[in-house]
C-alpha cells in the first residue's frame, strides 16, 4: 500500500527520535517531572506537608542549578540547541527557566506558611505548584505551537486546582470556588481562541514552528494569517490580563488564596511574557503596522484602565490586580519600542528586565500579604494594614519597598525597569505611548502611596491585629528578606543584571 511506504519513510527519517545529548538539554524539565512523580509517591506512602514541601524545594533547587549550569555554558558561547522541533534551549530560554524555578521555590515556601493550618489535605498544593512550574518552564523554552499549547494548558490546569484550593475548608470556600470557575471558563475560551488562531496561521504558512524560518515572515503574511496572529494575541492578552481581556483579573485575585494569586501574577505572567517576547522576536510581526496599532491600543487602554480603576479600590488584592493590568500595559510599551526590529536588543532587554522586576515586586507584595494572613483569615482589606508601621515595622518596611518599586520610585528595581522602558520608547520616538506611560505612572503614584499612608496612620481600634508568626513562617520571612534585597540591589547596582540580560539577545 502506498501510505505504508510513506509511514516507513517518516519513521526512518526521524529515528532515533530523541538522543541522549538532546535529553541532557532538557535536564531542568526532567528534574521537575521526576520531582512530581517522587512527591506523588511520597504522598502515597505517607501524607506529611513538611516532607512534601522539602521534596518540592529540593527538586526546584536542583532544576534551577541544572539550568544555571546550562546558562553558563550557553553564555560562554556554546551553540543553542533545538531539541526535537518542540524546544529551543538557548540563553534566553534557560534564563527564564532559572527565574521560573526560583519563583516557584519562593512560592513553595510561602505556600507552606500559608496553608500550614488548613483543615484539609495540604500536600496537593505543592504537587500542583510543581506541575504549574513544569508548564511554565515548557512555555518559556518552547519553539513550537504544540509545546506552547501544552505548557499553557498545564499551567492553567494546575491553577484551576490551586485557585479553588481552600474549597473544603470552612472559611472562604465560596469565593475561591467562584474565582476558580471564572478562571476555568474564561481561560478555556481564551485557549480555544488561541488554538483557532494557530490553525489559521498553519493554514497560511504550513508551519507550526515559532522559531523556524516558515513563520519568521509572519509580519508580511497574508491577511488571513494576520487574523490568526490576532487570535493568538487574544489568548496571550487574556493570560497577561491586558485591557479588554482583563475582566477576570480582580475577581480571581480577590477570591483565590494568596499563594495561588502570587503564582498567577509571577510564574503565569513571566512564562507567557517570555513566549510572547520570543514569538515577536522571531516572527518580525512588529514590522506590520496593523499589528503595532493593535498592540499600542491594548497598551494604552491597559495603562489607563488599570490605573484609573485601581484608584478607588479598598481591597489590597484587587488593587494589585488592577496594578498588574497597568504594569502589563507598560510592558507592551517596551515591546513596541522595537522588539524584532533593527534596534531590537535594547527594547528586548528592557522588556525582559521589566518582566523580571515586575515578577519580583509582585512576588514580594503577595509574600508580605500572605505572611500577614493565613488560610483561615486573609488580610486583604486596606484597613487591615492601618498602623502596620507601629505594630510590625519590618513587615511594613518590606511592603513599602514593594509599593515604591511598583510605583517606580528610585533606588528600587521598579525605577530602573520603568526608566529602561521610558528610554526605549524615547529612542524609537513612540510619543503617544510615552504620554500614556507618564500619565499612568503619575496616577499610579497616588494609590501606591495611599497604601503606605495607611500603614503610617496611628493604629486605631479598627486596625486588625495580624496573626503571630509561628515556626512555619520562618521560610516566608527569609523569602521576603531575599526579595527585598534583590529589589534594592537591582535598583542601586543594576549594572551586572543589565549586562546579563543584554547577553540574552546578543
Amino acid at each position, binding site marked *: 500500500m502506498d*501510505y*505504508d511506504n*510513506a*509511514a516507513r519513510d*517518516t*519513521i526512518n*527519517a*526521524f*529515528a532515533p*527520535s*530523541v538522543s541522549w545529548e538532546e535529553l541532557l538539554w*532538557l535536564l531542568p524539565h526532567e528534574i521537575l*517531572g521526576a520531582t*512530581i512523580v517522587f512527591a506523588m509517591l511520597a504522598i502515597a506512602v505517607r501524607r506529611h506537608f513538611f516532607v512534601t514541601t522539602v521534596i518540592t524545594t529540593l527538586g526546584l533547587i536542583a532544576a534551577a542549578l541544572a539550568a544555571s549550569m546550562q546558562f553558563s555554558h550557553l553564555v560562554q558561547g556554546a551553540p543553542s540547541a533545538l*531539541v*526535537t*522541533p*518542540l*524546544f529551543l534551549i538557548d540563553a534566553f530560554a534557560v534564563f527564564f527557566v532559572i527565574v521560573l524555578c526560583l519563583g516557584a521555590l519562593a512560592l513553595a515556601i510561602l505556600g507552606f506558611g500559608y496553608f500550614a493550618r488548613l483543615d484539609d*489535605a495540604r500536600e*496537593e498544593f505543592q*504537587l*500542583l505548584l510543581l*506541575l*504549574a512550574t*513544569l*508548564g511554565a518552564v*515548557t512555555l518559556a523554552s518552547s519553539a513550537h505551537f*504544540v*509545546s506552547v499549547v*501544552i*505548557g499553557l*494548558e*498545564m499551567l492553567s*490546569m*494546575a491553577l*484551576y*486546582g*490551586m485557585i*479553588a*484550593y481552600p*474549597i*473544603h475548608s470552612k472559611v472562604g470556600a465560596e469565593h475561591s470556588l467562584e474565582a*476558580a470557575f471564572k478562571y476555568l471558563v474564561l481561560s478555556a475560551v481564551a485557549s480555544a481562541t488561541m488554538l483557532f488562531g494557530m490553525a489559521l496561521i498553519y*493554514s*497560511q504558512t504550513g508551519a507550526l514552528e515559532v522559531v523556524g524560518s516558515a513563520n519568521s515572515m509572519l509580519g508580511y503574511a*497574508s*491577511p*488571513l494569517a494576520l*487574523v490568526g496572529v490576532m487570535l493568538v494575541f487574544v489568548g496571550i492578552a487574556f493570560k497577561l490580563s491586558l485591557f479588554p481581556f482583563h475582566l477576570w483579573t480582580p475577581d480571581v485575585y480577590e477570591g483565590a488564596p494568596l499563594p495561588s494569586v502570587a503564582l498567577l501574577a509571577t510564574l503565569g505572567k513571566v512564562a507567557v511574557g517570555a513566549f510572547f517576547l520570543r514569538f515577536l522576536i522571531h516572527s518580525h510581526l512588529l514590522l506590520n503596522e496593523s499589528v503595532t496599532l493593535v498592540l499600542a491600543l491594548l497598551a494604552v487602554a491597559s495603562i489607563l484602565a488599570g490605573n484609573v480603576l485601581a484608584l478607588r479600590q479598598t481591597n489590597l488584592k484587587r488593587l494589585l490586580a488592577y496594578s498588574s493590568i497597568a504594569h502589563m500595559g507598560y510592558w507592551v510599551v517596551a515591546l513596541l519600542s522595537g522588539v524584532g526590529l533593527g534596534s531590537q536588543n535594547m527594547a528586548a532587554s528592557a522588556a525582559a528586565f521589566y518582566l523580571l522586576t515586575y515578577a519580583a515586586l509582585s512576588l514580594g507584595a503577595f509574600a508580605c500579604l500572605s505572611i500577614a494572613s493565613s488560610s483561615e483569615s486573609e488580610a486583604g482589606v486596606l484597613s487591615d494594614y492601618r498602623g502596620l508601621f507601629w505594630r510590625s515595622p519590618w513587615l511594613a518596611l518590606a511592603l513599602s519597598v514593594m509599593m515604591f518599586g511598583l510605583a517606580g520610585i528610585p533606588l528600587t528595581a521598579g525605577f530602573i525597569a520603568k526608566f529602561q522602558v521610558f528610554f526605549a520608547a524615547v529612542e524609537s520616538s513612540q510619543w503617544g505611548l510615552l504620554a500614556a506611560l507618564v500619565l499612568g505612572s503619575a496616577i499610579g503614584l497616588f494609590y501606591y502611596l495611599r497604601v503606605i499612608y495607611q500603614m503610617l496612620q496611628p493604629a486605631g481600634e479598627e486596625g486588625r491585629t495580624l496573626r503571630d508568626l509561628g515556626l512555619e513562617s520562618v521560610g516566608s520571612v527569609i523569602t521576603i528578606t531575599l526579595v527585598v534585597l534583590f529589589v534594592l540591589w537591582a535598583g542601586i547596582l543594576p549594572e551586572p543584571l543589565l549586562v546579563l540580560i543584554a547577553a540574552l539577545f546578543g
Partner: protein
Amino acid sequence: MSELFYAGGLIAIVSTLLVIVQSNVVHALIYLVLSLLAVAVVFFSLGAPFVALLEAIVYAGAIMVLFLFVVMMLNLGQASRDQERAWLPPRVWIVPCTLVLVLLGMLLPQIFEIAAVTNSPFVEVGVKAVSAELFGPYVLAVELGSFLLLAGLISAYHIAKR
C-alpha cells in the same frame, strides 16, 4: 470527497447553531453529538481517518454520554427550560451577531481568494503516519501530555473529593 466535505460542514454549522438556540438541554446535547459526528465526517473527507475516529469515539461517544448522564442525574424539567428561555431574549443576540457578521464579512473574501489560488493534492494521513509522528519528533509532546492530564487529575481529585 469534496461533496462529503461540504455536506459534513453544512450539517456541523446548522447543528451547532441549533445547540446554541435550543432551550431544552437534552435536545441541545443531541444536536451537539450530531455536530461532532459531522465534524468527524469533515475530518474523514479531508483524509484524516484517524482523527475522524478519535472525534467519533472520544467526543461524540465518551464525553457526550457523560454529559447526558449528568443531565439525566440533574433531572431538569420545564422550570429550567423556562429559565433558559428567559436568559436568551432576542435582544441579547444583537451585539454578538453584528460582531460575528463583521468578522465573517472580512474573512470570507480572504477565504475565497485562497480557494482560487491553492490547489493542493489530496493526501491521506493514516494511523501509521500519525503514530510515526507522535513517537518520532513529537514524543516529548506525548510525555508532556501525560503531565497535563496529571495536573487535571490532581486538580479534579482535590476539588471533587469527599
